[in-house]
């Protein structure tokens, strides 16, 4: 079955330090991978995606993610964390069903907390 896993429920980082939010995937074929962020009582906002090409993908708000095929990972990173980055982060993968329709499925989410 195609899935994504986020092994950490919570990540705590001091402001100004680099942050990493981990994601591993299990898909058949080439993966289409996404990161979304959710602020309290808000919808999910797209951060970045990997389709093909460079393994390092840059996205919104200074975030980037590194695709690693051998480790089946797509970790989210930022060189210097801000308090405003505190939110819930979801890794997601596009899934193709028998009907060739596609949807994305989400990991369990990682709560990122940046302390001043």
């Amino acid at each position, binding site marked *: 079955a195609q899935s994504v896993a986020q092994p950490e429920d919570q990540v705590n980082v001091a402001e100004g330090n680099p942050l990493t939010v981990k994601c591993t995937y299990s898909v058949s074929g080439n993966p289409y991978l996404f990161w979304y962020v959710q602020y309290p009582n808000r919808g999910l906002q797209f951060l970045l*995606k990997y389709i093909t090409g460079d393994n390092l993908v840059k996205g919104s708000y200074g975030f980037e993610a590194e695709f690693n095929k051998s480790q089946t990972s797509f970790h989210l990173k930022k060189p210097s964390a801000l308090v405003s980055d505190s939110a819930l982060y979801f890794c997601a993968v596009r899934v193709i069903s028998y009907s060739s329709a596609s949807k994305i499925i989400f990991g369990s989410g990682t709560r990122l907390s940046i302390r001043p």
Partner: protein
Amino acid sequence: AAGVIQSPRHLIKEKRETATLKCYPIPRHDTVYWYQQGPGQDPQFLISFYEKMQSDKGSIPDRFSAQQFSDYHSELNMSSLELGDSALYFCASSPTVSGANVLTFGAGSRLTVL
């Protein structure tokens, strides 16, 4: 820029009642997705529509139904509501059903069942 509009933003219902949520996708987006997010949970895919036809189905209860109309807006109908249906319901839209198109999400409709 126009976003995905969901209404109502908040809805309170009693058990066994019926609720209808509406979603207006971004103009020229022909695919709509519905997700359910319980408290502290990740969003779970319910159902999607492409060009007014159901394109995929996830963990949507039989008590729920949905459709996409000619103007591409979609409605999620929930009947015989149960306490466990209390959740945040998200609608998302994308330009096409396939490919790596990004889903743009609405702000969600929070349903509380008492």
